[in-house]
């Protein structure tokens, strides 16, 4: 019985790996969400102990927190692209191709997040705006951005595929380039949402809402723009009226 069980498990595992090579990307995303939640809990407890303190001790450096945000929020958006890249590679290269795609995808997001964090830090020395109000402003801006043709174009190009060579350095280059193209389009599409998350001090409700909105928009052939706009309006209103979200 136990041998049969093991055999079945092996077959099941192999089948999962065959049909869903993106499984480890989902695992990474879940791990990133768990890490963010633990950090938020630690930060909340620290704030509770040192009440009135403006800083949020325990939060990691901007580059680390940005990477966590990207893995948690953005990796689930590109599961279809990851499956496509895996399917367009030789069997022995599938996971390497996914890794190269993700490296290419993460690069433009990291550049954006680090630039945005530095710009926000510089602005904060000039203007004092609570994180919730800043996030409300950004969600309002996301609503305006949502209505522009540039945003719709960016969403479309998020689904772009390019020819990928089968072997050699060309295959590595094409997988990375494929990720870079999709990542750049994602930045063009969702930069305001990501900005809202950074401005909200990486607040969990903001990040979770932005993920749901982005996912709804990306994984539907005809996204419900009214629903997305309503959700953004609601978020902006929530952050204006409840300053400690």
């Amino acid at each position, binding site marked *: 019985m136990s041998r049969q069980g093991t055999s079945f498990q092996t077959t099941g595992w192999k089948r999962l790996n065959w049909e869903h090579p993106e499984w480890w990307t989902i695992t990474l995303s879940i791990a990133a969400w768990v890490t963010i939640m633990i950090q938020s809990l630690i930060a909340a407890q620290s704030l509770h102990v040192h009440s009135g303190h403006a800083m949020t001790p325990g939060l990691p450096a901007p580059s680390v927190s940005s990477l966590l945000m990207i893995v948690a929020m953005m990796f689930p958006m590109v599961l279809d692209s990851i499956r496509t890249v895996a399917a367009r590679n*030789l*069997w022995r290269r599938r996971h390497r191709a996914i890794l190269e795609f993700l490296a290419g995808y993460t690069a433009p997001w990291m550049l954006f997040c680090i630039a945005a964090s530095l710009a926000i830090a510089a602005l904060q020395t000039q203007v004092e705006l609570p994180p919730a109000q800043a996030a409300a402003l950004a969600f309002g801006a996301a609503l305006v951005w949502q209505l522009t043709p540039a945003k719709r174009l960016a969403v*479309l190009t998020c689904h772009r*595929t390019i*020819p990928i060579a089968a072997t*050699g350095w060309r295959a590595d280059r094409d997988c990375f380039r494929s990720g870079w193209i999709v990542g750049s389009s994602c930045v063009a599409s969702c930069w305001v949402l990501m900005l809202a998350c950074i401005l909200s001090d990486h607040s969990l409700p903001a990040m979770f809402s932005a993920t749901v909105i982005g996912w709804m928009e990306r994984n539907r052939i005809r996204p419900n723009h009214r629903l997305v706009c309503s959700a953004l309006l609601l978020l902006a209103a929530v952050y204006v009226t409840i300053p400690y979200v």
Partner: protein
Amino acid sequence: MESSRTPEMVGATDQPLTLTGESASTIVPVSRPTGPAAVTESAARPRVFLNIENITSKGQPGGYHVYVNVPPGEKPEDHQELFAGVLPMFGVAESSDPAQGHSGSGLHYSLDITNIVQLLESKNAWDPNAMKVTFVPRRTPAGARESAAVPEPVQVGRVSLYYS
């Protein structure tokens, strides 16, 4: 049987091919399958698919006929047994342009060439390491090209071979 449904890519071209209204060929290097197709190879013969990916163009070119492993120096039209399928170019300009409501990736076609591969294998004419794919412009019954006098170039991003 379930596993045979997972497709496995076994070869693809490294460079795009530009079609300019004349016959053109490309060679697809083929590797031995190492995934699901290798497992199922002994039990059930895998189906073979020829994928023509990322076909882009700016104009309205005519379509192309696709042939597999036409012997050197011979006319593809004389080998109907090697005819893999038709590539219509309807909507190619729109699908190549993100401003037209598409991602800009172009058209994709998947042609089932299982019967052709079996025929070539039976004649000992199937090379498991390379496959030649020939594109021939479609012509009207009168013999003229489908497209305009000056044919629009068509870029074929990649030609690939899948076992499933």
